[in-house]
């Protein structure tokens, strides 16, 4: 029996795994100590729990526990990495390279850097959402201090060639920061093999609690440092002050351990379900996949249904299926997703997209129901779409002079 609503928005956040919650509970009441209290058993218990979690987190990405800085999440991690490198390496240069499809936490931080006098290059992506490696290398200047390219995209799920990117950065003596929030815990991420210098990630995208994340900061070859963005007690090797969120960190550790053990099986199961969903939806006329289908997260699909508006489409089943759209009809600007537009998609296709994020608790039954609902709603809305009617009559929509607002 299907239970509603069905959750297919796992790129936004994931439900917490009950095993994670179980691990956290004692740290709210029984072991409530401050991990920085060095002189009594309450503090020791908290510190021990944090140390253990640090090992669990480090192990997932093949890092040393000392290289893990706990944060409040990936937005803080993105800020700390970019602003921290900009300040720490000011004597070396002031130029950062990023891409137009990055998360706002990276893009807006880079805008902030520009206001401070820094220089930022925003690389365009190819039609499949991947960056062009030759363009990246050409953008490197003597003053370049950081390349900031995400591991996997939150909207279309494409996975950037991080190994190749890090090789280019290394060749020119530039640090590589990656926002790993969508990738860590979903696909194998190995900071040594991938050559990553700094990486932000978050617990709530991998079945852990909200409000806790980590910044990986490399300690060897090269030893990387970031300037703290929050002043205080000098926690986390002086890079991030603030009393540690012990229960959150314990949950994050447990989530990382579960991911390490179950990631491979989850990925196989979810890619099968995703492919089933995608192939069925592509049976609908004029439906298109957005982004590279080969280099992509196993649980993500982004599909546009031409001549149907995304938000209107969601309304057809939003009581039973939780999904996200690239349309932005609710925003004042009416601008659709900047990520889809960066792929070169016309606004009409960008307005017509749905993002599917499957997760550990997604079932085949849920996918079957989703296929049926979406197919029905697309057909229903096309019956009332003037654009679909014109398309069917063979009218070129570009030949019409639209009243732009």
């Amino acid at each position, binding site marked *: 029996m299907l239970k509603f609503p069905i959750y297919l928005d796992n790129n936004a956040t994931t439900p917490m795994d009950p095993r994670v919650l179980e691990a956290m509970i004692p740290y709210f009441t029984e072991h409530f100590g401050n991990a920085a209290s060095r002189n009594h058993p309450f503090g020791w218990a908290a510190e021990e729990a944090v140390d253990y979690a640090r090992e669990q987190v480090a192990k997932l990405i093949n890092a040393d526990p000392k290289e893990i800085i706990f944060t409040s999440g990936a937005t803080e991690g993105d800020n700390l990495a970019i602003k921290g490198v900009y300040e720490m390496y000011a004597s070396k240069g002031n130029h950062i390279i990023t891409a137009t499809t990055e998360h706002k936490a990276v893009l807006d931080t880079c805008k902030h850097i520009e206001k401070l006098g820094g220089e930022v290059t925003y690389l365009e992506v190819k039609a499949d959402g991947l960056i062009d490696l030759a363009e990246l290398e050409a953008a490197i200047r003597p003053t370049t201090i950081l390349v900031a390219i995400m591991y996997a995209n939150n909207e279309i799920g494409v996975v950037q060639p991080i190994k190749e990117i890090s090789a280019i950065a290394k060749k020119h003596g530039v640090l590589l920061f990656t926002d790993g929030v969508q990738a860590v815990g979903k696909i194998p991420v190995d900071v040594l093999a991938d050559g990553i210098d700094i990486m932000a990630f978050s617990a709530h995208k991998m079945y852990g609690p909200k409000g806790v994340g980590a910044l990986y900061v490399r300690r060897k070859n090269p030893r990387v440092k970031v300037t703290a963005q929050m002043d205080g007690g000098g926690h986390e090797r002086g890079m991030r002050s603030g009393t540690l969120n012990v229960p959150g960190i314990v949950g994050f550790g447990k989530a990382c351990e579960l991911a390490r053990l179950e990631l491979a099986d989850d990925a196989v199961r979810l890619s099968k379900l995703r492919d089933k969903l995608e192939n069925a939806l592509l049976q609908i006329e004029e439906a298109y996949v957005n982004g590279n289908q080969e280099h992509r997260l196993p649980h993500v699909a982004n599909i546009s249904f031409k*001549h*149907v*508006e*995304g*938000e*209107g489409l969601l*309304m*057809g089943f939003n009581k039973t299926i939780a999904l996200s759209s690239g*349309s*932005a*009809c*609710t*925003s*004042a600007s*009416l601008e*659709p997703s900047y990520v889809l537009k960066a792929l070169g998609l*016309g*606004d*009409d296709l960008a*307005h017509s997209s749905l993002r599917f994020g499957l997760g550990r608790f997604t079932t085949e039954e849920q996918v079957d129901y989703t296929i049926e609902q979406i197919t029905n709603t697309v057909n229903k809305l096309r*019956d*009332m*779409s*003037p*654009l*679909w*009617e014109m398309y069917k009559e063979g009218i070129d*929509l570009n030949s*019409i002079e*639209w*009243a*732009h*607002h």
Partner: protein
Amino acid sequence: MAYSEKVIDHYSNPKNVGTLDKGSKSVGTGLVGAPECGDVMRLQIQVDDATGVITDAKFKTFGCGSAIASSSLATEWLKGKTVDQAMAIDNMDLVEELNLPPVKIHCSVLAEDAIKAAINDYRVKNGLEELVFEEKGVH
């Protein structure tokens, strides 16, 4: 954002979806919005030439639920009105009836624009001058 019951009802059971013969002299067609903006409405009226009464109205809309509901409601209101009465339909009446939130007011403006465009199309076809309407400028 939650939708009002009325928006959901019009979305689930839209009234007067369809197409009238745009070549007919007694039919006025208004096509407003743009695919790039995520909203396109086509609203058509069938006018009784002798009485000036709108005997039928049809719409097709590409857009969100509020845009669909605004055009569906507009066609309901148009039927039985004279062309002159139809010109008096104000977008804020649609907003009130559908409980549209501020971010969705542009949907109602588009519906009002569609009504006026349909009326003008009918007027021009019948040798009357095109009316100039004040820009609402909300969208």
